[in-house]
């Protein structure tokens, strides 16, 4: 039983990171119907920049509280990631907005490769370790433990998601985003600057991604130029699971996928008599993706839409 609770805790932690990244996919997809393949790479670049700032500050021998160091890292990473997302949209996606569907998907793959290799040239191809800024403390709950880091990740993710919901539901920008998602042409006629709205969606997604990058790096303690790819793919799975284009769906899908993965990795060894082990953890996300797309392509919370020619 305690393994079960432990895996649920781990799953929710990982799931809230997936949810943050999934929100970036789902916002962009909801508005322009594009799978922003390079979104995972933005997460990676966010993590790398935070890492550089943090190691730089630690190396300068200035005694600062850990929270200030992390915030300084984010203060550098978030604007850079937003800038990258803005530039990416402007250069690679905007000119193709009316092109056949496959065209922007292929440029998105191209952007993903470019970002990965630029990151590899800057930060090298080795695994980089993220320094322990705070002492990790374990708090026992019902036979399992939760660390202060896990609590921090879950709380921060919840806070950011609440902020995003407020932004989308209560502000003028949010209203413009919802209108653009419903019908671009009519939203344009109502005086909404569609290009600004789309850029904003990309940039908000990138800001969430940068924070998610920090979270995943501090959770695993390492960063690598390739880390964004699989994370991005899983987050996309989460978005599809919840119903792509739907904010609540992305959050639900993220948490669910995290739990499925954690439980799967925790129990597959016992269930198959030791034949398969936790090395198959990454397979679960893909199986979930394939099953969801076959049996409920609109996701858990998505609306069923007809084919558009």
């Amino acid at each position: 039983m305690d393994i079960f609770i432990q895996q649920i805790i781990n799953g929710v932690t990982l799931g809230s990171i997936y949810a943050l990244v999934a929100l970036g996919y789902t916002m962009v997809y909801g508005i322009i119907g594009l799978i922003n393949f390079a979104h995972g790479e933005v997460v990676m670049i966010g993590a790398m920049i935070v890492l550089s700032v943090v190691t730089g500050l630690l190396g300068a021998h200035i005694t600062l509280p850990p929270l200030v160091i992390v915030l300084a890292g984010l203060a550098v990473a978030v604007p850079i990631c937003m800038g990258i997302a803005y530039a990416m949209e402007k250069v690679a996606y905007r000119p193709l907005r009316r092109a056949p569907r496959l065209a922007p998907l292929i440029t998105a793959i191209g952007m993903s490769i470019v970002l990965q290799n630029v990151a590899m040239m800057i930060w090298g191809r080795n695994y980089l370790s993220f320094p322990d800024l705070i002492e990790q403390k374990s708090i026992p709950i019902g036979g399992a433990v939760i660390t202060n880091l896990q609590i921090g990740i879950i709380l921060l993710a919840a806070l950011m998601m609440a902020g995003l919901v407020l932004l989308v539901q209560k502000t003028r920008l949010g209203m413009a985003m919802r209108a653009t998602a419903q019908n671009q042409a009519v939203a344009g006629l109502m005086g909404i600057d569609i290009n600004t709205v789309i850029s904003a969606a990309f940039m908000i997604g990138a800001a969430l991604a940068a924070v998610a990058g920090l979270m995943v790096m501090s959770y695993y303690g390492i960063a690598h130029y390739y880390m964004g790819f699989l994370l991005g793919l899983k987050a996309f799975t989460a978005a599809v699971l919840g119903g792509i284009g739907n904010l609540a769906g992305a959050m639900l899908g993220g948490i669910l996928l995290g739990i499925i993965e954690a439980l799967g990795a925790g129990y597959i060894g016992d269930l198959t008599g030791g034949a398969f082990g936790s090395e198959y953890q990454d397979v679960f996300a893909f199986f979930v993706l394939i099953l969801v797309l076959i049996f409920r392509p609109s996701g858990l919370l998505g609306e069923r839409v007809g084919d558009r020619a």
Partner: protein
Amino acid sequence: MKSFFDTKNNPQLVWAGVGLIAVALVLLPFGAALIGTAWVRVLNFALLYIMLALGLNIVVGFAGLLDLGYIAFYAVGAYTYALLASPHLGIHLPFWVILPIGAMVACLFGVLLGAPTLKLRGDYLAIVTLGFGEIIRIFLNNLNRPFNLTNGPQGINLIDPFSVGSFSFSKSQSIAGIDFSGPQKYYFLLLLVTIGIIVVNVRLQNSRLGRAWEAIREDEIAAQAMGINTRNVKLLAFAMGASFAGVAGGMFSATQAFVSPESFNLFESIIVLAMVVLGGMGHIPGVVLGAILLTVFPEFLRYTVEPAQQALFHRVIVPAESLRLLVFGIAMVAIMLYRPAGLWPSAVRRRELQTDYDDADDAVAAANEAASATASRDAVL
């Protein structure tokens, strides 16, 4: 000069051209061997990639289904050959038995993947195929337990070369007074298979099935309304693309004598896709050109970029491998933006992509753009 290319009035010029190309193709491996045997291997890889790119071209170029896990079928073909002709399981079947088996197994996997996923829309299909490719790779990597099928990350080695009786493709030999090295013999075999695959592709494109694929690519709903059984036709595209990859995989196994899961990662899929896209989706000569360019170009980089950096900075700052991927990435974006039909597109494709604002949908979009441009001054944001 113009009259020289006037093939319409001088049909014999076509045959002269074909003859010239044939002589060039025969002499090529001997020329490459003068620079180094490594370059003969590069030629062999170019031929393998041509086969792969042509197979993917059926799926992506003809039928318009974006497959990002195509390398999985290549892996299936390669592992089928490796398992049936190596000491790993102790089975040694001759290659002409295994290659059809490999094609069939890959075809089966193609149907397995295709059947449940083909009703998905284009971009979803891309992600599912990508996931499928990764699943295959993860299984190849881990199926050394509970029983040792794939030998895990170490891969399978000592794979049998192609051989007929005592004639083995891996040994150097003198035939009719000309010395052939192993890779040169493979070159001619691969060349034959490649030409066969090109012929099949050309015939497929002009067949009833080829036209059905094209109809689906342009408008699936309209194609269905015209009486095309879209599910079966799409499934056939997947199955045929996969079986070509299966054949190429078997030949890859034999020429390398070694396979491991690392040869079949996602980037291989993307590189093959880049060949199809860069060359010209759906246009067979374009795809062949794309495959040749993208195989030879990185080798060229390897021999120029790294020595140049050595000479300038006394160390390699940017390895050729990452530069290659970077250039691929930039090229994919640039091609889509500036030459969306590829470097060598078919005439039909080029005509299609040059028409603008001629239907209602585009007119709405144009009006919308104009509206948003005028609205941006007093926009809500």
